[in-house]
């Protein structure tokens, strides 16, 4: 269960480094810079994200965490007047490769948004949406995928009797878990989560954090969070951003116990941000 006390460095419990640390780099971000129009939001980012680990992005508001996250599945392309430099590779292939369909990239890189955004459809239809757009029509396969995803998202027991109800009738925490279930239904390789718990109460937050632990076995997870305890609790590695630059990126343990940069130290001890 999560604790709700104020974030003081002394009380932050850091998980021991995961045993699968040091896997080959799954996502590698190379000198990545990004502009919204004339405004540069990211500058010279370089970091590697290993497979099946949880990486947390932390930093004060507006430092570019979401921007980088949204670039990983090219959701930022939808915004007018954006521009990037550098490259992002997934399994060694650039996501900007002209021969790569952005749709297939997004099928591979799932995303959970800060504010839950279930479609105004039934719970079932929400979960199997990704399968429907791929073209799965077999009812049995859909039902099976629905159950698996909901179970993984720890929502099955709560909704199994009302799969045909409108998803908008769920509580806030349930909706967010539904969005997670929806994001993993087509079994992507990477799961991006942008402050998934920011609108949730502690109990729901706890459930989602547990969920992240379980999902790590299968997925590579990148999570943006405002809460340092959450970063400490769920992630294997943590990246600290400040004003569009990557300040420090290391194992979570290192960042929280012994940061090498003064800015990181100041941020996690609550002196600014």
């Amino acid at each position: 269960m999560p604790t709700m006390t104020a974030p003081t460095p002394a009380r932050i419990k850091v998980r021991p480094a995961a045993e699968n640390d040091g896997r080959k780099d799954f996502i590698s971000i190379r000198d990545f810079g990004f502009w919204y129009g004339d405004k540069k939001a990211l500058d010279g980012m370089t970091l590697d994200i290993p497979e099946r680990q949880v990486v947390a992005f932390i930093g004060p508001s507006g430092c570019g965490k979401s921007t980088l996250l949204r670039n990983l599945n090219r959701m930022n392309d939808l915004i007018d007047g954006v521009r990037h430099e550098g490259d992002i590779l997934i399994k060694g292939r650039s996501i900007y490769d002209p021969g790569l369909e952005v749709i297939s990239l997004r099928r591979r890189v799932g995303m959970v948004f800060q504010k839950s955004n279930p479609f105004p459809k039934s719970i079932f239809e929400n979960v199997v949406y990704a399968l429907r757009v791929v073209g799965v029509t077999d009812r049995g396969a859909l039902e099976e995928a629905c159950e698996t995803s909901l179970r993984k998202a720890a929502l099955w027991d709560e909704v199994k009797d009302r799969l045909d109800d409108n998803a908008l009738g769920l509580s806030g925490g349930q909706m967010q878990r539904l969005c997670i279930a929806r994001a993993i239904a087509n079994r992507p390789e990477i799961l991006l989560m942008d402050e998934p718990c920011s609108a949730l109460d502690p109990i729901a937050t706890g459930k989602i954090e547990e969920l992240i632990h379980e999902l790590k076995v299968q997925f590579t997870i990148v999570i943006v969070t405002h809460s340092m305890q959450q970063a400490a609790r769920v992630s294997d590695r943590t990246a600290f951003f400040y004003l569009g630059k990557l300040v420090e990126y290391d194992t979570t343990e290192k960042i929280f116990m012994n940061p090498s940069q003064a800015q990181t130290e100041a941020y996690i001890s609550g002196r600014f941000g």
Partner: protein
Amino acid sequence: MDDKVVTGTPPESRFQVARGTLLADVWMGRLIRLGGVGVIAAVIGMLLFLLWQVVPLFSGAEVTPQAAVALRPGAVGFGEDESGEVVYAAHPDGTLRFVKASDGSSVTDWSPPAGSPAVTAVRVQSREGQVLLGHADGSVSSVTVSFKVSFASDGRRSVEPEVKSEPPRQVGEKGRAVTEVWAVRATNTRLFVVRQASPRGSELRALRLAERRGLGGRAVVTPGEPFAIAPDVDDVGQVLVPSTADSVLVLLPGGEVRAYAGEGDRMDLIQSFRPFPGAGRAPSAAGLIFGDVSAVFLSAEGEQRVWAIHPVKQSDGRSLRRWGEVREPVRLPGPGAGVWAAAGNKCYLLAAGGELQLRNLTTGSVRWQGEAPPGSARQVVFSRNYDRMSALAADGSLRRWKIEDHHPDSSWSAFFGRIWYEGADGPAFVWQSSSGSDEFEAKYSLVPLIYGTVKGTFYALLFALPIALLAAVYVSQFLRPDLRLIVKPLMEVMASLPSVVLGFLAGLWLAPVVDANLVPLLCALAALAPAGLASGWIWSRLPQPVRRRARPGLEFLWLAPVVFLCVCAAWSLGPSVESALFTVTDPSGAQVSDFREWWRVSTGLAYDARNSLVVGFVMGFAVIPVVFTIAEDALSNVPAALTSGSLALGASRWQTVWRVVVPTAVSGIVSAVMIGFGRAVGETMIVVMATGNTAVMEANPFNGMRTLSANIAVELPEAPAGHTHFRALFLGACCLFLLTFILNTLAEVLRQRLRERYKVV
């Protein structure tokens, strides 16, 4: 907490609310409420006004008995002046006694001139102002009764009868007394018919006079030779002489009716029929209805049957005017005793089983019913403007009724039912409110107009909805945002184009252009959709690097050459398509390649230049902007979170639109469609100007229609207020109101449900 704390210390000024703020709040609230109530009241008021105009159409006649006029005993017929002030009774000896209707005081008496042969038969034809006297020597004299209205110096009205008699004409066989006499006058001819006793019973003889107006305006009368009608019939029963003066209906005692007709000095049997099927069932009463092409027969068993002359297709393809039964039989309260037609409309009074019924022949409606005075009436006379009827009762008294029936020819079935009008070959829905002729009967079926409204709306929406909705989807979801900022206001400008201008363009410019280039246009229309789809398919097969060349939001530019090519191809191939597919042999035997001719010949339907396609197309211009604007708003208002959620799940843009955006915006789209529908249903000027406005009932896209709204616009200025025509137009307005009201309500219910289902938190 004690009261002192609450009431004692006044709140500090910064917590106080100014009186003005509170007052403004209260008054604005009231004002808004007033506005809302006002709008509802206005709508209800409008509906009530429409109903108030329409309700009189469905109320029957009001018939109130007036004081009876005492006549001298022994009257066999009567007549009256137009205002009903002076009544004259005809007596068996041919004397006419004029009395004041108000008090029965004598005005004057008239007797046949001295020396004329003894009178043996009298008939008063009050409407024509004619009294016919049959004489003992077989001759007939016609007496004209007219009334002169004069005003005395004190303003008092006085009505002076004037009687003129013609010398007797020999119609019957010389020396044999006339027992019954008829005379009718049509253009250029007069027909006299007499009945004379014969050894076997009675027989008919007739005389025709040809009248020609000479140069000086004086009538030149050429009498023909008297001739016999139905010489083979032993005993002639009741006789009906239509005012067309070309035929005679003879009812035989056995139940058979024979129609004799002919020109000159003969009449031949042209048809014989039995109004009541079954041997021995004879009419107990019969009468011709105004216009004299329909006859009502009553039977002793209490049944009414209506026969009329109408075109009947013969086996050789010709169509002849013959008598046929034109209405369902009607059960009456008792044995039929008499039928008397009103003047100037298709109403008639019938007596059956002690009851009087005032009925309308065309609609079959019972305008009024009441108790009949004891004994059967000898003669019933309706005033010319249908506001009074008088009956000469068997006891010699004259009973009078005041009639208030402003809409005798209206009824539910007249407006919404199939009606067999006189002269038509079958029942039909017809709207034809006016015509040049007086004999004309106005036809007020709203069904062709409702049909036209639905047809116009259908073609307009068929064209407008796909374009407006797809454009809304495209603009809101795919177009580059900066272009979108241009397109939306442009569409709104388009919405503000006055429909008169659109109608004008449609009727005077577009219709001829379409007419001249019909086949290329149809080819282009037919080719565009497949070409668009095909180019999309080809596009999706192109390698990714090529596709990347299309800037997002500007993909439509790639479609422009496709559209252009399509149109060019259609124009250049049009003539060959026309000659390959639409070649017909025209009436002169030549082969022509003309779609219009081909359409007429191969479908048997009409082709007009101003047709539904043109109207639909131009009405589309009025409908597209409203539908587009509202649908675009609804689609743009779908939260971006849903769109990005869908895209992040790996859905394509089209899948996102189709599976998420459209369902979420569906309630707004339904509203857009409904508003477009309302606009199309109510659209008036375009229809008025761009169609022929003929009230036909054909789904044919190549002819016009007349819509309820266009009908009101065209005819209301010439409909006299309070007249049936006027009220029928209001009934059309009611239908329009109801149509839109019902559809809007249904759409609103649907919209609420959809909103419930797809509501976004």
